[in-house]
């Protein structure tokens, strides 16, 4: 056992140090406006009193994350001043001196230590395969690579620039705590996470229902029916105290200052459009495309009048409101209802038939994907919320491994447009190949005995990414359409990826209802 533990530490640290060094090599790559967003937040939190944080609007990138994240930036700013004091001045818009870049990049790399720790805890939750002495064939090793070296996370955090690693670290740690039966800790971590970035509200329903059903009911009846006499008020109170105190620490000061409505209006800006400038590959991308196709068809068949169609280029580049021409326009409320309907079966499932932490994890993934599919103004990066947790299931179950391969490859490809600069083109292709080759060969090796992971139609779909990439980034820019119709490659990418994401979503639902988590539970 001691030998095994020592070996675990040895290869785990190799993977972690290796990827951290790779991140350091990415310091001088392109960074998006998110870099300036976070610099501005450093300046706001450092130079203004708390009461002005959510009112400041000198820069267009106003503070729109929850208070704990603002405090996180406040903490960082006290280290930042030793690198370059000028980045902390509000008026220094777009300040990106080498010291500033170094500091901001290093802050992401070092906060990723939380992620690394969380991955380590997740690896411990995975069953060691019996009879494998080779490190490469150990499911824990595969999981560690799939998480630590995740392509999407690497390019979004360390090239594009965001702090997702640290946030996903908290999420995965919370999931691992639930796996380990330490539910209160898990709940605490999740409420902290919600107060760092409110996008995780998407998966809050899964947490709420799971904690109510599997934690607040002390013992399970054999037929899994709900017996209210097993309900423990004490546990509910414990949970409530933990969650409410985290929220109180976070929002309390702003409620005391009477700024709560202002903070909320910053957090939920519904003035943005249905889709982001680049359509996230979700249901609305397909909906928009159908609308556009119908409009063109209508004009061709003389059923519609060209003049009366609303003029708006859907992928013009600016975040704007957009009206559909043929199909009904979508309101924020409609997307909310669609999202709720899409995740409701999964939530009902874990309420009615609770089958342990793995089903809970599956429900989290479905919630993340449901809101990705139907949410209002979804960013393409949000798909990581489904891909990362799915890695945990993929190394244990053959069918999940198949879904993971389709979803992860599609999701990774859908992140390609984030990096549109030529110097980063080779990096994204190389890293994508690295991750794809590894995930395919390692998962196939884990489930060698149980047959192929994906069928021929699925692999044909995935191989389709190769010509798509060649067309979009190598052939299309040479054609004349690049000037007149520059958005076509983005649209093609988004539509093609939307197919894969939708398919994986449906497959996940099937896997939830086919109840394979019973067996996993029986094993543990």
């Amino acid at each position, binding site marked *: 056992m001691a030998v095994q533990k020592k070996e675990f530490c*040895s290869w785990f640290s*190799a993977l972690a*140090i*290796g990827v951290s*060094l*790779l991140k*350091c*090599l*990415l*310091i*001088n*790559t392109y960074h998006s406006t998110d870099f300036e967003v976070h610099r501005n937040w450093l300046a706001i939190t450092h130079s203004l009193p708390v009461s002005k944080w959510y009112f400041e609007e000198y820069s267009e990138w106003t503070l729109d994350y929850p208070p704990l994240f603002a405090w996180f930036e406040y903490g960082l700013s006290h280290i930042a001043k030793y690198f370059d004091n000028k980045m902390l001045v509000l008026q220094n818009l777009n300040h990106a001196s080498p010291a500033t870049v170094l500091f901001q990049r290093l802050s992401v790399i070092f906060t990723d230590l939380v992620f690394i720790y969380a991955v380590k805890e997740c690896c411990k939750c995975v069953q060691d395969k019996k009879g494998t002495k080779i490190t*490469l*064939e150990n499911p824990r090793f595969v999981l560690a690579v799939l998480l630590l070296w995740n392509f999407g996370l690497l390019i979004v955090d360390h090239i594009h620039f965001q702090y997702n690693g640290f946030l996903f670290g908290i999420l995965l740690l919370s999931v691992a705590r639930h796996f380990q039966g330490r539910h209160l800790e898990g709940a605490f971590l999740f409420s902290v996470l919600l107060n760092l970035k409110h996008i995780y509200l998407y998966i809050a329903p899964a947490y709420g229902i799971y904690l109510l059903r599997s934690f607040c009911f002390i013992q399970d009846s054999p037929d899994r029916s709900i017996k209210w006499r097993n309900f423990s008020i004490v546990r509910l109170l414990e949970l409530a105290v933990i969650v409410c105190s985290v929220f109180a620490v976070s929002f309390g000061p702003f409620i005391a200052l009477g700024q709560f409505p202002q903070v909320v209006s910053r957090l939920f800006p519904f003035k943005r459009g249905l889709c982001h400038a680049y359509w996230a590959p979700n249901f609305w991308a397909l909906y928009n495309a159908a609308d556009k196709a119908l409009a063109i068809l209508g004009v061709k068949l003389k059923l519609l009048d060209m003049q009366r169609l609303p003029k708006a280029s859907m992928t013009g580049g600016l975040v704007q409101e957009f009206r559909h021409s043929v199909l009904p326009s979508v309101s924020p409320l409609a997307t909310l209802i669609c999202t709720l309907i899409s995740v409701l079966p999964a939530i009902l499932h874990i309420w009615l038939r609770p089958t342990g932490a793995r089903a809970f994890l599956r429900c989290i993934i479905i919630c993340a994907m449901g809101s990705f599919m139907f949410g209002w103004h979804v960013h393409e990066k949000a798909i990581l919320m489904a891909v990362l947790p799915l890695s945990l299931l993929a190394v244990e179950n053959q069918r999940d491994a198949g879904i993971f391969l389709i979803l992860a490859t599609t999701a990774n490809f859908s992140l390609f447009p984030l990096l549109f600069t*030529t*110097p980063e083109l*080779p*990096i994204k292709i*190389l*890293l994508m*190949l*690295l991750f794809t*080759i*590894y995930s395919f*060969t*390692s998962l196939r*090796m884990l489930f060698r005995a149980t047959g192929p992971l994906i069928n021929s139609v699925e692999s044909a779909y995935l191989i389709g990414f190769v010509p798509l990439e060649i067309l979009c980034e190598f052939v299309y820019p040479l054609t004349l359409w690049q000037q007149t119709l520059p958005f076509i490659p983005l649209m093609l990418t988004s539509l093609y990826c939307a197919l894969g994401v939708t398919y994986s979503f449906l497959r996940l639902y099937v896997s939830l209802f086919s109840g394979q988590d019973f067996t996993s539970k029986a094993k543990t």
Partner: protein
Amino acid sequence: METWAIVSICVLLGLTTRWTVSLNSYSGASKPPMFGDYEAQRHWQEVTYNIPVHQWYFNTTDNDLNYWGLDYPPLTAYHSLLCAHVANLINPDWVKLHSSRGFESPAHKLFMRATVIVADILIYIPAVVIYCLYLTEGSAKRKASMLLCVLLYPGLILIDNGHFQYNSISLGLALWGVLGLGLGWDLLGSLAFTLALNYKQMELYHALPFFCYLLGKCVRQGLTGRGLTALVKIAVTVLLSFALCWSPFLSDPQQAVQVARRLFPVGRGLFEDKVANTWCSLNVLIKIKTLLSPETQIYLSLAATLLAVSPSSVKLLTKPTFWQFRLALVNSSLAFFLFSYQVHEKSILLAALPVCLLMNELPLVSVWFLQASTFSMLPLLLKDGLFLPYIVTSLGFLFFGLHLLSLLDRGTADDLRLGPLCGRLGACLPGLTFSSLVRWGFASSVLAIAALTFSSAVLAAPARFPDLFPVLVSTLTYAHFLGAFVYFSIVQLVDVPRRSSKKKAN
């Protein structure tokens, strides 16, 4: 996992590192009027593209040899011409005669970086992969570990993809030569090595082992029978490929002489800058550069080099095995580096390549040497603004060396091929095992390197000694290189039978 997957993952990691390093600055970036090696390569494209072949190596109104005149063999010139044609397709301004001088733009940088990585992909990396898969003993894991470590060797990456040169072409061709000899295709090997020699004259550092190995092998087959035909075939191959490379310059003897004069500029002095070889280190104590006449300097360095290289060459001639050949490559290139005339700090890469090839048999010493060789180029890398990639790649190489090759467990006398010699040494130093001594040496060397790296980058040199840190760096690395030369010479000359290691590998 399948071998192809592991190999491609290693290669992809190597390529990713190369490309991310190449996003950093290069030598002479926006430093007019002379710029640096990047501009030299661009200028060669301009010259070869616009000027007829017969004027490439001559000083004319259109070809100012004092401004980065072509001083590499014809193959480099052809390569420049090829790149120039591509450059002209993309943007003719990049290679316009005269007006393109000192041209710099992000797009041009991207193009130049791409030419380097294309050369890596076509020549160097396939050679490394084949060497690690087919000429390395041991388990698949061991082969993969070695492949990754060789591909991540920071020195070559930092100079080629950072500072800007095309060493991966000349070294890659030389490696193809080694592969040819190792796999028994002597003709192909000599062809590849001739091409290497015609790409960069510095490959002469490797020429003696190639010559001695092939000659020794032919002698062994009998100089009257099969050996003679083999020798004639090799000689014809070499001569033909030489003639092919030099064909535009052979019509007129004056041409050939001028090219040769450009390749071996004897007027440049015994050494330049601070380089970790004998002459520069000696210069700290005795000012030989001013004491001796230039001619004496040439003869002195020639004699010293020949003296240093002869033992390993003679040994190889009498015992032409592949193991001896690889050791002789190290010894010959180190002898040239330490004692020959006009050595650059980057020439240590010529010794680093054969040391990389010994990483499987002698992991500890190889990694130790390679680490020191990267460190020896620190002053240059600092000047180029490559400190960050230097730190990251060096740490990565050291860490993966320690982790994948389990260096610290491989420091016994047997592992270092010093078995019989160490019995006596052990008696002199009671209480200390040989391997712990080696480990201490390694650790203190790494610490010294780390300390000196830190002080060179952070501290300002005292006003009285502005060159303090470069001199300290070159002296420290000189000690390493001299030690390595002595060690590898002993290993080659004593030639302990390799049975013990084979058992372990199995």
